[in-house]
């Protein structure tokens, strides 16, 4: 019988806080967005950290998509949209003078709710951005790299010239992801990325997001809070506040590590929402 002399190494990882030493890619300070005189969201203060998945959850009408679209200035397309407060991207005021929205969108890509590939071949879809933005060197390799990163290469490598519209819903969405990351953005925004897909495709997209996290910062908006729970490192809960005249606007209620939001949220409203009691 041997004496117990050897100490066994603890196999579990150190439980570092999720954020650790990461930089903030976006910093929002007292951000508010208006459509004309209608206030959509207000009082948003949060930082989005590098190479993490940040989820935005909340009831419908709470301004999740509105906030997401401020990050890549897609709100500019709505003529009545205006914004107060500050939104910084790597220290630069995103809405400051001299900032070109087109340049912003090169660095901050977006994938939409319903897959929207162009009416051309699979190859041309991915190459579209590359060609226009002058990243034409080694075009074929870049296209392959993007399709691999989107976990789509093996399924389409033999039919790159086929129409993109012949792919299934889940494949089309992955194609849109490939198209977005082909131009090498730093951030990829997902607006309800799997709400139009079946559960298996949804699972595939979620696995893909975990892969993408290694190279990109991801921000996703989802009305499916279980998806946020499964996928995100940080979660922001937007709630609804009632105005004096009865209308409502969205506010940031709580923003924390996902684990905390779903096991022990600080705000009662958050608890009410994630338990499905209200909102």
């Amino acid at each position, binding site marked *: 019988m041997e004496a*117990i002399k050897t100490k*066994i190494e603890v*196999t*579990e990882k150190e439980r570092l806080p999720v954020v650790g030493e990461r930089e903030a890619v976006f910093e929002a300070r007292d951000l508010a967005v208006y459509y004309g005189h209608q206030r959509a969201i207000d009082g948003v203060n949060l930082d989005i950290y590098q190479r993490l998945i940040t989820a935005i959850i909340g009831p419908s009408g709470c301004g999740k998509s509105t906030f997401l679209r401020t990050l890549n200035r897609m709100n500019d397309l709505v003529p009545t949209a205006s914004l107060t407060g500050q939104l910084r991207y790597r220290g630069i005021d995103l809405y400051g003078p001299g900032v070109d929205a087109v340049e912003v969108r090169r660095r901050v890509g977006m994938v939409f709710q319903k897959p929207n590939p162009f009416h051309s071949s699979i190859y041309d879809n991915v190459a579209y951005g590359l060609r226009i933005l002058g990243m034409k060197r080694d075009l074929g390799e870049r296209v392959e790299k993007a399709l691999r990163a989107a976990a789509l290469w093996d399924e389409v490598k033999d039919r790159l010239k086929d129409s993109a519209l012949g792919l299934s819903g889940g494949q089309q969405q992955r194609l849109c992801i490939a198209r977005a990351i082909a131009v090498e953005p730093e951030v990829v925004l997902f607006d309800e990325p799997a709400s139009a897909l079946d559960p298996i495709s949804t699972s595939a997209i979620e*696995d893909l997001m975990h892969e993408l996290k290694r190279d990109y910062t991801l921000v996703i908006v989802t009305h499916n809070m279980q998806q946020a729970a499964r996928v995100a490192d940080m979660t922001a809960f937007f709630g609804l506040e009632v105005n004096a005249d009865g209308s409502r606007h969205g506010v940031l209620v709580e923003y924390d590590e996902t*684990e905390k939001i779903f*096991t022990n949220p600080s705000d009662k409203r958050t608890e009410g929402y994630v338990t499905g009691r209200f909102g």
Partner: protein
Amino acid sequence: MRELYTSELEELEALLRDEGQLADRAIRGALNVLERDDLELADELIAFDDEIDSRYLAIEQRIPSLLARQTPVAGELRLVLAILYINLHLERIADYCVTVAKLAKLAHGLPRDRAVLEALEEMGERCREMLGTGLEYFYARDFTDSQALIEMDRPIDRANRKLIDRLIALGPDESQREWAMRMMLASRCLERIGDHAVDIGEQAAYLVRGRFEEFTDASHKPPRATT
């Protein structure tokens, strides 16, 4: 599919496996301490409990997070719950080993009885067997019958009775009586370890069958052997 979730489940089970092995070594270590009456070994065993505690805590912390974030259902839900309970049983087993070591320290230097020590050894080894079997059923997700585990409980009962008879027959010497008291408590610890090992088997059965059943209950007679 759901790779992160799958790897989290695998990690949990790996931690549990570790803990199971450590618990088994703790039992063996406690028996060694009794056998050799070695104070240094006893202290090492007591310190060794930290290893088990750290895994216990790790599992305890991960499970609520896993339940909240991944919402396991069906077999995976039962798996997580089984891990939760087995974790607890293993920790208790380890604690009882520490108690045995402490009792041995207190009984150091007192006159010992060979037969009692043999009975304790017998009980301890049967416990290890039961623990190993229960955990095997769990890992293999295979639980064909509970009889084997119940059968294994009998030798422990027999050894325990033999031990008590022996202790009662020990001499009038105060130091002998002190030693007998300590060994009585040690045997109680080993009996409890055996109970926890059976409980682990029950969790394995729950995982496989989807129903929870008690094999043995303190308030009922054990079922008769069928063979």
